[in-house]
């Protein structure tokens, strides 16, 4: 069983501050996305339950993102091999371009199961998994909260808006996971040491039969600002009883109380 798990390096959103409506991105640390870690953990559990198989972590290096460290971390968690695609043109790649590169890397590596987070923790577009599946012509199952190996395939329990669905598919198949699927392991010091010795292949776009023209962005972000807030800023003074009275009167006047 060949499992490919796709990982992305995300900005640590807990560290983002807003100044004059602009997100302050300088000095923001990058880390493996939480959902990607769930996908890696799911891969490890599947491989170990099957008693064999290879997990290859695939990552695309974007500007200033510590892609190699990201791959080392998932190798330390338990992935067997890693593939890193590096190319300056990818700094501006949109989801379609990222998907094309990842799909080509998947073809080169070979796969039975493709695992993704349901979205990246930063922008959560959820586009890359379905697009990779379409390019490769494999069916997809989104929002897995449980994956069980079957003879030549998987059974997936997935969490939809109002329902739980159980689906079965033979390999090859693409699956995206939600956070409730598992608690990703924290690598031991020993495994962190070992991770450096695991195979890591580096590809350029040319190695994948692509060039800069294949990854031109087809969409533009016109602005990316914090929402403007127009609030009343009315403060109630006095002792708690007076504050409570003024507050409740204000709510009554606003008509927001449920009576």
């Amino acid at each position, binding site marked *: 069983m060949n499992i490919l798990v796709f990982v992305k390096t995300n*900005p640590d*959103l807990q560290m983002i*501050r*807003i100044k004059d409506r602009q*997100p302050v991105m300088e000095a923001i640390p990058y880390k493996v996305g939480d959902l990607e870690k769930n996908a890696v953990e799911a891969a490890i559990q599947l491989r170990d339950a099957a008693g064999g198989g290879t997990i290859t972590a695939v990552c695309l290096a974007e500007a200033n993102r510590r892609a190699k460290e990201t791959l080392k971390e998932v190798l330390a968690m338990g992935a067997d091999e890693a593939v890193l695609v590096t190319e300056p043109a990818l700094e501006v790649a*949109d989801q*379609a371009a990222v998907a094309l590169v990842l799909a080509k890397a998947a073809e080169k590596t070979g796969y039975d199961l493709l695992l993704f987070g349901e979205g990246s923790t930063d922008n*959560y*577009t*959820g*586009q890359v998994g*379905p*697009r990779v*599946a*379409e*390019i490769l012509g494999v*069916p*997809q199952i*989104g*929002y897995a909260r449980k994956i069980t190996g079957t003879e030549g395939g998987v*059974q997936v329990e997935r*969490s*939809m*808006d109002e*329902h*739980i*669905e*159980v*689906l*079965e*598919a033979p390999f090859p198949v693409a699956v*995206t996971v939600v956070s409730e699927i598992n608690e990703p392991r924290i690598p031991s010091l020993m495994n962190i040491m070992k991770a450096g010795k695991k195979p890591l292949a580096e590809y350029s776009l040319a190695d994948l039969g692509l060039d800069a023209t294949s990854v031109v962005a*087809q*969409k*533009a972000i*016109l*602005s*990316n*600002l914090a*929402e403007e*807030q127009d*609030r*009343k*800023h*009315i*403060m*109630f003074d006095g002792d*708690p*009883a007076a*504050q*409570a*009275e003024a*507050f*409740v009167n204000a*709510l009554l006047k*606003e008509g*927001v*109380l*449920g*009576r």
Partner: protein
Amino acid sequence: MAQILVYSEKPAAARELVFKAKELGAALGLGVVAAALGEGAAGTAAGLGEYGADRVYVSEDSAFAGLPVDVVAEALAQVARAAGAEYLLVSSTRRGKELAPRVAQKLGAACVTDVNSLTLEDGVLVAGRYALGGATVALEKLDTQTKVFAIMPKTFEIGAPTAGAGEVFAPALSLQPSAVKLVDRRPKEGESVNLDAAERIVGVGRGFGKREDVALGEQLAAALEAELACTKGLADFQWLPEERIIGLSGAKTKPDLYVAVGISGQIQHTVGVSSSKLIAAINTDKDAPIFQLADYGIVGDLYQVVPALVEKLKGL
């Protein structure tokens, strides 16, 4: 004539999108068509016509059983090509969000998901969506010939049906059954917290000193007939379940009233409440960032203010 094609597996969402598409189509000089696919499609089709679709493509092909995303995407791509669709509007439900990029990929289209605003600027459709975990709103435009937008349900107001029934059309689709088989489908169970739909929410944060004190927040929520929610910090203590987290790691809500109690107002929490109609805050620290976001603020000790509020509300 180029068209706007609308599809959602949820009839109400499809009607909302058709209604919006009619407005956009009038401005852009485009017609509106819709697709209704799978079991019961014929029944939904008439409604879509009444809300503005000139033509509804209807198929109850057996390949749609369980609505496998690869088959639905293929069908929509075939309909889009047949109709000459320039824009596809689908709902950003979980099903729609995995469908949109796949159909976009088939059509060589750019796509934007989780759209919560759609405006026309100089003849170009500009889509808004939260980015960076909700800290910002990204405005995006798509540069491909065909453009796919997955839109959050209830983004647009829907008016009364005005049009006639619309033309119902059975397209000749060429579909292969999916390799994915639906084995079981059951409603979600467990604690039913629906913060997304709550009209009033009381949020509690680290201003509460110990687990038992969260009962004060519960009392206030009960008095306001509100849902109780919390910051991630409080859920990390396991004082409340994760389902009640609001913010980056939890729900994005838009209630009529949000009351933040003992919450300082870090962006990681406030992204989940910034769309509230009214925000009120109770905090001991007059410089807490939450007050910058508040319509009504009380600087004070929550252990005194909350009981006074509960008493006042009970007396109404």
